[in-house]
């Protein structure tokens, strides 16, 4: 049985040796079985690579969000009761506003370090969601979601969605003009939901928009419900990383059966702990030097005011863009209204995008039929179709994202909003196709370059001129380790179905599903550049013995 999954077994060694321990640890061990539980964790090996630290950025910024968030709750009043402001920010003196907004002003101007903590909280939130996305893309492009990590992929995906939700809830709490506008849009989206939309909106807002109930309700979701879910899922996410051990890049001595790296205690304890403080440091410097969400200039929310350039935080920007570039389709049928102009961009498009992303590991496994465990990461170039689909998805998201800022792009580059919107309407379809094609070509080109390197060696930058004046570059053969690194991946071949009936006229087993799978497999794996041992040996022999 595996040592990591068996905290309660394998205690024979303990009885055999009498190790002196300090009384406190012994006290704890006698009650918790501390040594049994942690002995295999202490020297757990983690592989070294910068891209393995992206998830840590998310984790540590989340810790900072929790800490600064607790600070903010000590003064924030989640109430929509109207009050007249009389605090130290006199440009809002005497202005009628909700208690939520007034208390946010109080935190910003009257509570010492309050502004700092607000800015820490907000910057860390932007970094949190960014880090989740970048981390998730790293997993996607390197195939780290493959068996046995599909569950952890889904947990991570859920965390990303919860992060978006949590971020939007937090953005909405101060009840300033910008966040109120965001909620107004959200209420418009809810209203557009067929059949139940109107009821849903009235239940959510406790009546007409904006009502007096929503901020307190959102507060509970923001500080209790979603954070509790995130903490729980993050814990599960990390336990699984420990249990399943980290993936690693192929390299000399690094195989699918082992994990090579430095021990958790002390190296990763220090590196990860240090990274946590470095991230804290970066966020605190940001909070001290760069202003974020100056709610006092936006003023309190009132439903009849608006500002040019009203945008959500970046992670909701793709929805904003998708709403902006949607044509105005709306149907009226039998006395009912279906607002495709709202439903498609705000619910259907993200629904498809995210569902596709979440289910990708299962789709890929279905196509490859590969049921083995994979612990060696793919270099993105070696999976050209997956990489190209990923880049196409990013392009799609990116165009929506740009669309969300079309007014600012227009003013900064002196373009017309209408022309930009039309450009994005076209690009959102054409862009991903171009991106797919280019990425695939680039990936295959890189594969070809790898092949050149394996067969002919590394370019040295040294130019030789022969006696007849011919220039050539000196190539240096790769080391055995480098050769292994570049060839240590499988080349996935497309699924061959064979003839429809065998020689006895018996039809091939497997129906339409199999044919579909073969088609998908062909699309994904037909293009590849293979370097075989034979090619290498042949070339080696041809080179002679000089």
């Amino acid at each position: 049985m595996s040592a990591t999954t068996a905290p309660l077994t394998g205690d024979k060694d303990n009885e055999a040796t009498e190790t002196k321990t300090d009384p406190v640890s012994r006290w704890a061990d006698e009650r918790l079985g501390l040594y049994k539980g942690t002995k295999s964790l202490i020297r757990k090996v983690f592989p070294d690579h910068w891209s393995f630290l992206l998830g840590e950025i998310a984790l540590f910024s989340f810790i900072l969000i929790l800490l600064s968030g607790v600070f903010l709750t000590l003064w924030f009043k989640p109430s929509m009761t109207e009050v007249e402001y009389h605090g130290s920010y006199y440009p809002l003196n005497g202005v009628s506003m909700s208690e939520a907004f007034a208390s946010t002003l109080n935190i910003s101007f009257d509570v010492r370090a309050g502004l700092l903590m607000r800015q820490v909280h907000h910057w860390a939130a932007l970094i949190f969601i960014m880090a989740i996305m970048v981390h998730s893309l790293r997993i996607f492009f390197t195939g780290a979601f493959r068996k046995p990590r599909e569950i952890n992929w889904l947990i991570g995906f859920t965390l990303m969605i919860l992060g978006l939700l949590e971020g939007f809830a937090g953005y909405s709490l101060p009840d300033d003009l910008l966040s109120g506008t965001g909620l107004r849009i959200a209420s418009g989206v809810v209203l557009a939901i067929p059949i139940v939309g109107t009821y849903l909106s009235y239940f959510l807002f406790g009546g007409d928009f904006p009502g007096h109930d929503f901020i307190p309700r959102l507060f509970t979701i923001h500080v209790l419900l979603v954070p509790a879910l995130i903490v729980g899922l993050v814990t599960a996410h990390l336990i699984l990383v420990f249990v399943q051990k980290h993936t690693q890049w192929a390299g000399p001595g690094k195989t699918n059966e082992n994990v090579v790296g430095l021990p958790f205690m002390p190296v990763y304890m220090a590196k990860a702990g240090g990274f946590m403080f470095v991230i804290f440091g970066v966020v605190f410097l940001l909070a001290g030097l760069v202003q974020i969400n100056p709610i006092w200039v936006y003023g309190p929310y009132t439903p009849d005011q608006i500002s040019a350039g009203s945008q959500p935080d970046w992670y909701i920007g793709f929805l904003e863009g998708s709403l902006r570039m949607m044509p105005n389709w709306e149907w009226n049928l039998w006395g009912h209204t279906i607002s495709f102009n709202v439903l498609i961009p705000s619910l259907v498009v993200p629904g498809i995008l995210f569902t596709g992303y979440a289910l990708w590991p299962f789709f890929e496994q279905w196509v490859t039929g590969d049921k083995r465990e994979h612990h060696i990461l793919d270099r993105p170039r070696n999976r050209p179709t997956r990489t190209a689909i990923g880049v196409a998805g990013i392009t799609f998201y990116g165009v929506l994202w740009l669309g969300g800022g079309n007014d600012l792009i227009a003013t900064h580059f002196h373009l017309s909003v209408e022309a930009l919107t039309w450009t994005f309407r076209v690009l959102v379809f054409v862009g991903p196709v171009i991106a797919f094609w280019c990425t695939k070509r680039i990936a295959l080109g890189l594969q070809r370059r790898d092949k050149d390197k394996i067969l002919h060696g590394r370019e040295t930058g040294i130019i030789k001129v022969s006696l007849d004046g011919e220039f050539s570059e000196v190539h240096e053969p790769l080391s055995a380790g480098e050769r292994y690194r570049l060839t240590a991946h499988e080349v996935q071949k497309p699924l061959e179905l064979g003839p429809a009936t065998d020689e006895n006229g018996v039809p091939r087993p497997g129906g339409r599903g199999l044919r579909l799978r073969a088609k998908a497999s062909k699309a994904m794996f037909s293009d590849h550049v293979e370097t075989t041992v034979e090619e290498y040996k042949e070339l080696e022999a041809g080179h002679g013995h000089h």
Partner: protein
Amino acid sequence: MTRTSGIGKESSVVNTLSARRRHPLAAFVVLFLALGLIGATYATLGSAKAKAASSAAATPEQLAEGQKLFQSACSSCHGLQAQGVQGSGPSLIGVGAAAVDFQVGTGRMPAMQIGPQVQAKPPVYTQEQIDAMAAYISSLGAGPDVPAADVYTPDLSDQGSVANGGVLFRSNCSQCHNIVGAGGALTDGKFAPPLRQTSEKHIYEAMLTGPQNMPIFGNSVMSPQNKRDIIAYLMHSRTEAGSPGGLDLGSIGPVSEGLFVWTIVLGLLIVIACWIGAHTTKASRARVAHFEATTGKDATNNE
């Protein structure tokens, strides 16, 4: 190392490609210098402010001077009698002196280029010349006069005025000009200009006359005191209020914050991650050899 001096002249010339290469950061340095230069140029040009002066009663000399200037600079678009020319310039009869002072004083007139909207640029005429043209135009038909300094000069020490100005700005102006006057997009390439550099007088005149596509906020809809409050709020946000939290990133809201996070912050964090993730530099072979020679121990023995 020898230099290649010509194809085939020397039997075997070896040259490293890198000898010809520039420092990898050179391109960035050049880019930054260029950007800095452009920025500096813009800053110098942009800071040229129109001098504020109020119009007094017009003298006959002034009217004559104004007419002369009008005919040479404006009549080709607005007609010799300022009656307007279909398709090139509107009639100026009855627009008032304030409109002239704003349009010419902010450099929008004379218009130089065709575009969705006439843009502000360094003014072509001195304030005296502008006053003369304004006097001439207002002599053609009554319209809003250039406001006196005490009408548009806000009292920044009046906190109530600043606060009221904020409320008015948010309900009447920010929809186009953004929340601290950073400007915003309109239809078909038109835009509401930023207000960060505009003088008090020109802001007042703009509200009074509604230049180009800006609506008019006449005195009956928005009293002179209201206008002064708005100016007080804008001036206060420029000077005293500043950006308490630090760098304001252009005051255009979450987009620039997001951009900042995805470029500078992400870049920085990845650099740090590379530092943490990379193996520490190994001792050179020479150093290892020296160690083994002096201590007699095996350096590769890691026990």
